[in-house]
């Protein structure tokens, strides 16, 4: 019985997997091309080579916390929701941890308690969204406003600073052997963890199923609300952890980075091939995409391109790559030329573009 069941995967499903994997491969190609371009075009990009702290590996400290946030939001997007509160959450968590520490708490106890409180806030947001059946976009937007206010009010006029050196070193600026930043190792562990959670655990498969078809998941016995709430808790915890890394890197809690963290994080998830409506994508794509976006900024800056064009290029990359992805998506059927023509065919009924999480 089991043998035919395995071989009977529908052609549709095989193509779906292929599409996702193809997208990740293209991302890897883009990343390699980007690194080669900066390698040959920008003499300072590698700094003193692999062993130097000003190399591209060192540059990764400027974006790895954004990548961590992207990993967290990814869970929520897999389930077909969205979490806009992550940027404010990371700021809030940093302030919370620093204030606990200043209040006399051991720094590691403060870290653990901050992460637990962040998970609790994620739980509350998830409960509000699932119990009252509200749009996650709006509830987390409100959450953003409230957390932002709470962080600014809590820290008062002066941001807390003077965190212990060993904390700043471990989560922030420290390196292993002077070469590999600690943050890179932490991110690698978290990325591996995320891959295992999404692709190798029962919760992960349920998560993707909930995003793919919420009603079907419900009929199949998946506790849809519980799965979605867990995704929000994961998202909040990852964002809070990123906030702790930011506090460690800058030596002070930052409450002002909200939108500047959120937008690149969502960009990385979407560029990484995760369907914004949920239910499709690979974690590896998000990891690769976050490196593409992360290294683009320091690379272009050192290439002499202005700050402005550098920022714009991220937006252009997002729009162009998604347009190309849509046109080349074989899941829609037909040949490439037919798909291209279908875009401009006024006779074809347009699928209503919807905001995420509309029933």
């Amino acid at each position, binding site marked *: 019985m089991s043998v035919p069941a395995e071989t009977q995967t529908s052609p549709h499903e095989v193509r779906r997997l292929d599409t996702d994997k193809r997208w990740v491969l293209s991302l890897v190609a883009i990343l390699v091309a980007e690194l080669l371009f900066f390698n040959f075009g920008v003499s300072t990009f590698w700094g003193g080579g692999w062993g130097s702290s000003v190399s591209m590996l060192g540059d990764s400290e400027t974006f790895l916390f954004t990548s961590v946030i992207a990993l967290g939001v990814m869970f929520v997007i897999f389930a077909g929701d969205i979490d806009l509160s992550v940027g404010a959450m990371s700021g809030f968590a940093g302030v919370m941890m620093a204030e606990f520490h200043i209040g006399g708490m051991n720094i590691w106890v403060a870290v653990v308690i901050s992460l637990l409180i962040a998970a609790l806030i994620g739980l509350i947001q998830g409960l509000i969204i699932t119990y009252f059946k509200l749009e996650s976009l709006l509830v987390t937007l409100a*959450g953003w*406003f409230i957390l932002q206010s*709470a962080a600014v*009010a809590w820290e008062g006029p002066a941001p807390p600073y003077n965190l212990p050196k060993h904390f700043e070193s471990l989560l922030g600026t420290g390196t292993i052997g002077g070469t590999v930043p600690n943050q890179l190792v932490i991110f690698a562990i978290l990325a591996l963890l995320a891959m295992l959670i999404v692709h190798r655990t029962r919760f992960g498969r349920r998560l993707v199923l909930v995003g793919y078809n919420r009603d079907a998941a419900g009929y199949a016995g998946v506790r849809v609300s519980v799965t979605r709430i867990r995704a929000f808790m994961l998202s909040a915890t990852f964002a809070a952890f990123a906030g702790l890394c930011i506090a460690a890197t800058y030596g002070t809690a930052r409450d002002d980075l909200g939108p500047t963290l959120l*937008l690149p994080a969502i960009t990385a998830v979407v560029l990484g091939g995760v369907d*914004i409506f949920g239910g499709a994508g690979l974690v590896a794509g998000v990891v690769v995409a976050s490196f593409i976006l992360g290294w683009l900024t320091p690379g272009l800056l050192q290439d002499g391109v202005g700050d402005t064009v550098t920022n*714009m290029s991220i937006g252009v990359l997002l729009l162009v790559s998604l347009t190309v992805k849509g046109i080349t998506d074989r899941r829609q059927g037909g040949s490439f030329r037919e798909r291209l023509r279908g875009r401009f065919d006024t006779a074809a009924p347009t699928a209503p573009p919807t*905001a995420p999480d509309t*029933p």
Partner: protein
Amino acid sequence: MTADSPPIGRAAVAPATSATRSSPLGRLVRRRELLLVVLTLVVFVVTDAVNSGFGQGGYISFMLADAMPLAILAVGQTIVCLVRGIDLSVATVLGVAAVATGFLAQDYGSSVWLMLPLALALGIGLGLINGLFVVFARIPPIIVTLGTLIVYLGIQQLICNTRTVVTVPTSYATFGNGNLVGDIPYMLVPGVVVTVIVAFALWRTTWGRALYAVGANAEAAFRAGIRVNWVLISAYTVCGMLAGLGGLAWLVHYDSADYTTGFATNINLYSIAAVLIGGTTLTGGKGGVVGSFIAALFLEVTIQAVVLLGIPEAWESAAVGILLLAAILVNRYQASGHSLFQALAGHLRGRPQLEHGSGPAQ
């Protein structure tokens, strides 16, 4: 869709269906525009009782003028939300329009009337780009406008190029902060004119009804012969145009603009909050612009009240967040057909009255 969304401009005529079985309070909650007016007055009177400076002429005039950029943006945002879209890029469209017109005003002293078509044209162009991506690239609107938010911010920075707008002709300041008559500032004129025109267009023109039809059910609208793609593109274009107008309004009100104008203040998110508080939903086909306009005024009064009541300024955005949460809860239960109080009572007894994923029957 038609039953519980006589869209706009009918605050005085409560729909008969809801009037038959609701309490007066329930009817008030149903007429969102009326509810917001009452809430605004309550906040105003309470704050005035505590801090007498609030009710004085200068402050009222200031608040009316101060709310207009947000109100104009919210009107545009409403149009996009009616077709199930969302436009995050309005903040930087506003910024681009503000700095482009600002530098012309600063360098050449051009008059406001010359700047008006320029701001509108800039907004139309940028909004059109959004619409084309949404329709032809078939990327979800939230992602399109997230991308263009970043791109337009770059355009804004390119225009600025380390300079800022600091001095504009005095006629701008007069228009942005002066009073037409009594406590009515000049700024209120563009806001009200825009709201009335758009409200009329939504209520009485083919284009407006097509927006509601596409938002409620795009497939059905297509089968009924509505050119869905054209309606979608026009919605984003008009939204962009109003964001451009909002940029000019920002410029004349604050008399300054720089490379973070709009983006730094999260005015795009506030405009979405105003739309939702005004009774329009993100699921499309329901709502109107009068509610959004009044909601923008309500937000302004609330924010100023937070400051004047001695609450630290940091809590200002939390106030907006809480109002937004309350608004979407109310929207949710109005859509379900139950009165809010019935629904809440059901929840408290542990029996939610809504089936999974149920929305209004369409």
